[in-house]
């Protein structure tokens, strides 16, 4: 899984430093390579809502979080590749790696 972390968010809510064309080109590459499992771009952060459930079952809903953390999750790809080096190559080609960073996490394998 490639978690696309944005450093700074511009007025349109997109990661600064890369264009829509960059993203479309990358998205096409991932699809054409036949490795895409799933992927989403997340909506603007002002739409985020947080839920916490207390030990007594009480539910707290809050607006946000806003830019409390320095890096924000902006979207993700789940890809199917043989090893970490292949995953790192795809992460490095992702436009989000240029201004922010891309965190590579294997999806847990609970074994067949």
């Amino acid at each position, binding site marked *: 899984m490639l978690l696309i972390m944005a450093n700074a968010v511009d007025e349109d809510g997109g990661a600064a430093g890369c264009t829509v064309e960059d993203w479309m080109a990358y998205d096409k590459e991932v699809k054409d390579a036949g490795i895409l499992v799933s992927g989403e771009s997340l909506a603007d952060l002002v739409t985020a809502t947080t839920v916490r459930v207390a030990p007594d079952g009480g539910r707290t809903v809050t607006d946000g979080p806003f830019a409390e953390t320095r890096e924000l999750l902006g979207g993700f790809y789940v890809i199917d590749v*043989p*090893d*970490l*080096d292949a*995953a*790192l190559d795809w992460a490095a080609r992702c436009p989000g790696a240029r201004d922010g960073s891309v965190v*590579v996490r*294997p999806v847990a*394998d609970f*074994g*067949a």
Partner: protein
Amino acid sequence: MGEWPVGDGPVASVEAVFREERGRLLAALVRRFGDLDLAEEVTSEAIEAALAHWPVDGVPPKPGAWLMTTARRKAVDRLRRDQAFAARLAILQVEADRAGPVPAAELDGDLPDERLQLFFTCAHPALAAEDRTALTLRCLAGLTTPEVARAFLVPAATMAKRITRAKKKIREARIPFRVPGADELPQRLPGVLQVVYSVFTEGYAASSGPRLQRLDLAEEAIRLARILRRLLPAEREVAGLLGLMLLVHARRDARTGPGGELVLLEEQDRGRWDRPMIEEGSALATVALTGGPVGPYGVQAAIAALHDEAADVAATDWPQIAALYDVLLALTPSPVVALNRAAAVAMRDGPRAGLALLDELAGEPLLRGHHPYPAARADLLHRLGRDAEAAAAYREALGLAGTEPERALLRRRLGAIEETRSSSKGTRHGS
């Protein structure tokens, strides 16, 4: 393949040979089964079997092949016992086969050398720096976990945990066992060299503790670099790294005095330097400097060679050393390199020029807490006759220095300055 002991040879030498070959066997098994834990387990079992059989039955004609066959048989047994594990490995193996060609034919019927890919796995940038070093010592130098722990002065349980965590990351994040392609090599090789060099520097000047040198680690690093040099004969930075380590290690006997105290380069008895090692290192430095742009290890080897080839400090080619530091600073800009460059400039152009360069570095955060910085300033201040400032700088360095021999050296220098200061004061009072 290396030399094998004859059947009736002492067991200690049998074990020494196994240590040399353990990494080779392990690498071949990792390649075949794609799992480091399984490969380690059956490597140990095969070596135990050899220790039991060879002294009785004699060493087989192809010892490497014997070990490999034994280990593979044990691995197959293990996989039969654990079907779920086998299924998982089978999937990995299919992917590994798809990913690359099957290793080259076993030329002389003995083991092919597949350690290079294990070097790159152990030094993978996805692993923490300290884990890379520990894994390389464990898997390629053939050290046991308690030996690695002792080398780094940490409890064995801590090191075992660290190695287990690193192996888990390799397995679960699927760090591959492969040699990077020619296009990736320039990016990945420095990581491997860095691991080997950090083993060396750790052994050469322990950052803490009573003993200054831990020779075992320095020698392990040289051994690892020799393996790399054989595996990557065209890479000049590998030659540079091996050359650098040999040229520094050649001074080991002169570096500490009879009481274990630190002896600086300028005061060392150069008759105690290891001449054959210097010759080998200088030849490697020449290789590293010839035939294309030079890398940082090649430059450092050349600097070390100039020191080692000089009869004494005065006869040292300081202009060339200062020029090489200019090159090194351009290749790897860092305040520590700039500090060494300033010391070389001081030898070439005098202490005032060196001190001016050092003072430019005063604000560097990386030099804050780095005792060689105030110690170098103290030395130059003393040479300029500014002893009050020199004494203050030595005191500052003393507050930061790590090993006891380093602190003892600083105390001696500080003591010498204070003595001349008080006696000169005494003279003034008397006159």
